[in-house]
């Protein structure tokens, strides 16, 4: 009797999670397709579909007739890289948040807390302020990426105590060094009033200047990051129980930590380098995943990737829509504007005591 009850309970739970997965998968693909038709310039969905089909090697010529060159360029040069960029960056920030929260055993951390954002801001400001062109068109992003890695490296090595990196040290050192680096950024901005506008917009985050080469770079790095995170999801579950517990179940704590922090830093830094600082995703999307799928990282990591992508796609659609009279709003503003109320709603209606114990 008791066994049957448990079996039906497990079966019910499984069915519920399957339904949720299916719903999220459908939402993802619908949003992906709809996004291609949304922009400040109106292009009918059928034309967009024709343009996409016309890109298929060998078969594309059959569809290349009903659209103008301008429509083609808008879809291929602008919308497609922006949308794919949103998918990759949303996934990266979502997974980055899930991993960092598990390692730190702290629900209010995100990838930026270890110095990624402040380092990237310093690199970008130095590139803009110094009119540096060492990487050509990729100088601002390149400098942001390099400085982001440098600051995380500094934070990590400044946190080493007797061969180990205590997480509290890492967290506090991350906050302290980030504040220090932010002060340098503020000083640079204060020294040159003309920089403030350009840097301000970079800090707000934007997918507007996404190009195919940028998408290729961040896709490669972030596929690696997501795969590593998925492979280490059991270790991340163990970290959530504490480092002592993780060690007791055979996890090589220090080695795993440095591997995960390094891959998250690489992935998230590459995204910040090409899109600026997009907030909220890394902090909140893992929580949304936990509310929907439970606490295991075997579900939370992939769910954070998909939900992060969906969330950033919707944000990008809103930023790009004609709601703002043809003006494109920095996506970082939209993520917070729509994300916070949504998350509050989710916590109140769906969490069901998840955060009360």
């Amino acid at each position: 009797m008791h066994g049957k009850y448990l079996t039906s309970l497990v079966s019910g739970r499984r069915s519920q999670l399957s339904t949720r997965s299916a719903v999220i998968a459908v939402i993802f693909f619908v949003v992906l397709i709809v996004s291609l038709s949304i922009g400040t310039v109106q292009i009918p969905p059928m034309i967009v579909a024709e343009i996409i089909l016309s890109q298929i090697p060998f078969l594309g010529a059959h569809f290349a007739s009903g659209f103008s060159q301008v429509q083609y360029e808008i879809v291929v040069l602008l919308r497609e890289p922006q949308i794919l960029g949103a998918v990759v960056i949303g996934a990266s920030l979502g997974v980055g948040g899930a991993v960092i929260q598990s390692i730190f055993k702290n629900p209010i951390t995100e990838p930026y807390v270890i110095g990624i954002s402040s380092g990237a801001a310093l690199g970008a400001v130095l590139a803009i302020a110094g009119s540096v062109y060492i990487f050509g068109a990729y100088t601002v992003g390149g400098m942001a990426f390099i400085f982001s890695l440098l600051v995380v490296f500094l934070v990590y090595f400044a946190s080493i105590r007797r061969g180990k990196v205590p997480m509290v040290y890492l967290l506090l050192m991350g906050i302290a060094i980030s504040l220090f680096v932010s002060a340098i950024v503020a000083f640079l901005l204060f020294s040159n009033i003309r920089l403030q506008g350009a840097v301000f917009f970079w800090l707000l985050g934007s997918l507007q200047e996404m190009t195919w080469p940028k998408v290729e770079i961040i896709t490669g790095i972030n596929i690696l990051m997501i795969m590593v995170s998925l492979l280490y999801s059991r270790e991340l579950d163990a970290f959530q129980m504490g480092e002592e517990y993780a060690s007791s179940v055979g996890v090589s704590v220090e080695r795993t930590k440095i591997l995960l922090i390094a891959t998250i830093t690489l992935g998230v830094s590459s995204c910040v380098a090409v899109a600026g600082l997009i907030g909220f995703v890394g902090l909140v999307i893992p929580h949304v995943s936990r509310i929907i799928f439970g606490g295991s990282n075997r579900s939370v990591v992939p769910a954070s990737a998909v939900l992060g992508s969906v969330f950033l796609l919707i944000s990008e659609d809103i930023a790009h829509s004609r709601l703002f009279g043809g003006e494109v709003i920095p996506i970082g503003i939209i993520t917070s504007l729509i994300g916070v109320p949504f998350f509050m709603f989710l916590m109140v209606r769906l969490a069901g005591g998840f955060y009360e114990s």
Partner: protein
Amino acid sequence: MSEKLMDKKMWALVAAIIVVTSALISVGVVTQKSNSASAGKITVTDSLGRTFTFQHPVTRIVSLDPSATAILYALGSYRYLVGGNQFDCYPPHETAPNVGDSYSVNYEEILNLSPQVVLGYGTSMPTYGTYINDTLHIPFILDNPENFTQIENLTTMLGILTGTQSNATLINNWMQENLANVRNQISLQTNRGQSVFYYLSACGGIWTSGNDTFINQYFSILDLKNIANSPGYYTVSAELIASESPDIILLDQYVPYSDVTAAPFNQTSAMTSSPQKVYAIFNDSFFNEPDFRVVYAIQWLAEQVYPGIQLSISQFPISLQYPPWPSS
């Protein structure tokens, strides 16, 4: 069992996303356009020294630079403006769609307008300029006039670009003639060499413009001594204001007079003289947009600083629906 099933589904979902993403990327890469070089008859050079060549004068222009928009209007090339920016102020009633400003632009709208060239402003190449040039394959011409000679160069460049070079010459001659007249009249004044402080902004400090800025050139022509000696735009200490005690304070349009009624300004020569020598700029666009209309800004400032001076600006050489001089 349930978790394992979930794992498989999640892995499958992630794998599907990766496959779709990779497929779309590969398709996109295949369809990228190459940037073909053009050879032609019109050649212009921008403030970064980059050269652009066109077969014919351009007839579709997007301007992200309010000064360039004003100059295009004066040249008679305004009909070629297919996209403007949110800071365009002259001529009034712009009908071309707004595609952004100096910081953020709408790339879809720019592509949709099919411009032959995009004009921008800045000391260095902005990231959107690189994007327009390298990704959208539309020539992005940057300008950055920091003095009157460079304004003339910009006017000439836009004249060549739009096939209105004769009008550009007329405008430049008009500027030179009137500025020479101003210099002559100033040389006759007895109270030259007064010290001046330009109060640019009160946001986060006392902002001013230093000795290598565009604004400083107004002061040079009018034989005024800027108390801000450092280069660029920066904040000065209250002690500098108190110790230098400027004879004249020039207020930006958006700095209220009440800001100079307290220390350190209230004890300065400008505030204690009778009448006070505190002048609020009547219209920012004449002072802060580097185009031919600066002649009117200098006329106004000269008349404030040297009461009784007889300065008349000659008739603008091109007949325009919206006159370039300030409306009274």
